[in-house]
């Protein structure tokens, strides 16, 4: 079965979701990621969704789950690169992704995680 690669980037893990996600792939990603956070003691997780043409409630729930589990393991999740059309659609769908921080791109997301690690800022999701 295909897996989505998880890269280590400093104190953070970077996941780039490039494919149209199948359900099995999403579930495998949750498992792989939890194991990797535990193994690497990563403090942040960046999920790059700039390739995703849609986010439905299934993917939304996966993002929420990842954020919740990461939080338990003392890592913060930042979803980066959401397309504008996807953001507009998500609001109308009714999915607020309240547990998930977002940033425009990987650099800004990385900065959010670093600021929080250095004790700067409150990781409030404000654009840094």
């Amino acid at each position: 079965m295909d897996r989505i690669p998880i890269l280590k980037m400093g104190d953070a893990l970077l996941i780039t979701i490039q494919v149209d996600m199948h359900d099995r792939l999403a579930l495998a990603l949750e498992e792989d990621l939890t194991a990797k956070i535990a193994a690497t003691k990563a403090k942040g997780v960046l999920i790059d969704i700039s390739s995703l043409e849609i986010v439905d409630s299934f993917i939304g729930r996966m993002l929420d789950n990842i954020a919740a589990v990461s939080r338990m393991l003392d890592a913060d999740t930042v979803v980066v690169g959401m397309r504008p059309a996807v953001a507009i659609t998500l609001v109308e769908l009714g999915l607020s992704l309240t547990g998930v921080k977002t940033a425009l791109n990987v650099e800004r997301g990385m900065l959010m995680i670093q600021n929080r690690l250095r004790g700067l800022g409150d990781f409030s999701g404000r654009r840094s």
Partner: protein
Amino acid sequence: MAVVRDDVMPVRSSDDIVRVRQEVRARAIEIGLSLVDQTKIVTAASELARNTLDYGGGGTTRLEVVQDGGRRGIRLTFEDKGPGIADVELALKDGYTSGKGLGLGLSGARRLSNEFFIESKPGEGTRVTIVRWK
């Protein structure tokens, strides 16, 4: 209302849902929907096809390109012969799920479409039809 094009696709696996999304996207581009409207109809289709699979035990998606006077649209019909929905009004409430979902599929798909119809009979199945006009 004239039907310009008519295709039926199976919904029996999560791969089929991916294929339905791709086909809806292709039709949406064909009739000239804006990127935001493409995204809305594809997202609605993804939600409804998933319900067909998860709750209806599988079924079909019908994709039609329709024409009404000068305007074109996409009509999608999701049909299964599953257990049906006992209380449709409840199922349409934001946040209601009988499973482990977020309960936003039906209500969200309704908001993302210009027209929304649902017919369901316990023991017989469910049919949801949506239309998005250009």
